[in-house]
């Protein structure tokens, strides 16, 4: 699961025990990135 720190804009890997916190700047607001998979959508 990849996130991006909302303050320093660096990619962050979250691990189970580290809590929600950017390891580089300590900021606690992380943004979830869109997955790089190709997504197939039907026209409804």
């Amino acid at each position: 699961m990849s996130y991006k720190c909302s303050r320093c804009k660096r990619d962050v890997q979250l691990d189970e025990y580290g809590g929600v916190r950017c390891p580089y700047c300590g900021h606690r607001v992380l943004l979830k990135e869109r997955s790089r998979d190709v997504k197939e959508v039907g026209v409804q």
Partner: protein
Amino acid sequence: MTEEYDVEFVEREDREARFLVRGVTPAFANGIRRAMIADVPTMAIDTVRFVENSSVMFDEQLALRLGLVPLTTPPVGEFVEDDTVTLSIDVEGPATAYSGNLVSSDSLVQPADENVPIIDLKDGQRLEAEAEVVLDRGKNHAKHQGGVAVGYRHLQRVEVVGDVPEFEEPDERIVRGVIEDDGELVPTSEFDHDLTNRYPDQEVAIEDVPNAFVFHVETDGSFTVEELVTRAAETIEARATELEEAVQL
């Protein structure tokens, strides 16, 4: 039973036309109208694979917008069920992605218009997707409707029956469609839909001409008006044949 139909064009362009049909029953006129709207198959995007979408709209919203883009439909027989055509789009902001940015794998299936906006992309946003196109009919999804604004009105016969008495303030007589005046077909738009413009100071009588209908047909660009009308008649013909065969069994 001998069918005496007579067709005459009043206005005619590629995507829009007005034509008069004589000798047709109201039921048949309505059957043709409904067939044009719901039963003539057209090409439209059905599934979209998003490689990248960093725009402000969700994939599903963009998929719907792409689905509604009118595409040219190949001639009958060129395209059979289960054949697929792929369209791809790749636009990077700052720019607006238009239907014209769709690149087709088949020259027969192209966006009918180049200028349908899909999404406005800001700096750094990008849309990259591939779309699968299928053939289906309007009955199943509005994106497959080839006919937009399809309707008919009775042909109206106008006859001068006398003069308006002097000093009488004439009321406007609004009529829409096409009138028949001594055998001449005149679209009401020519006199601003007001009979008092065409027949000043004259008393006129209007009546519907039985079994004469003026169709107004506009297509979404999938094909020409002629194509749409012909194919609509063919769908009715096909169903009649199917019923005939089913009854014989």
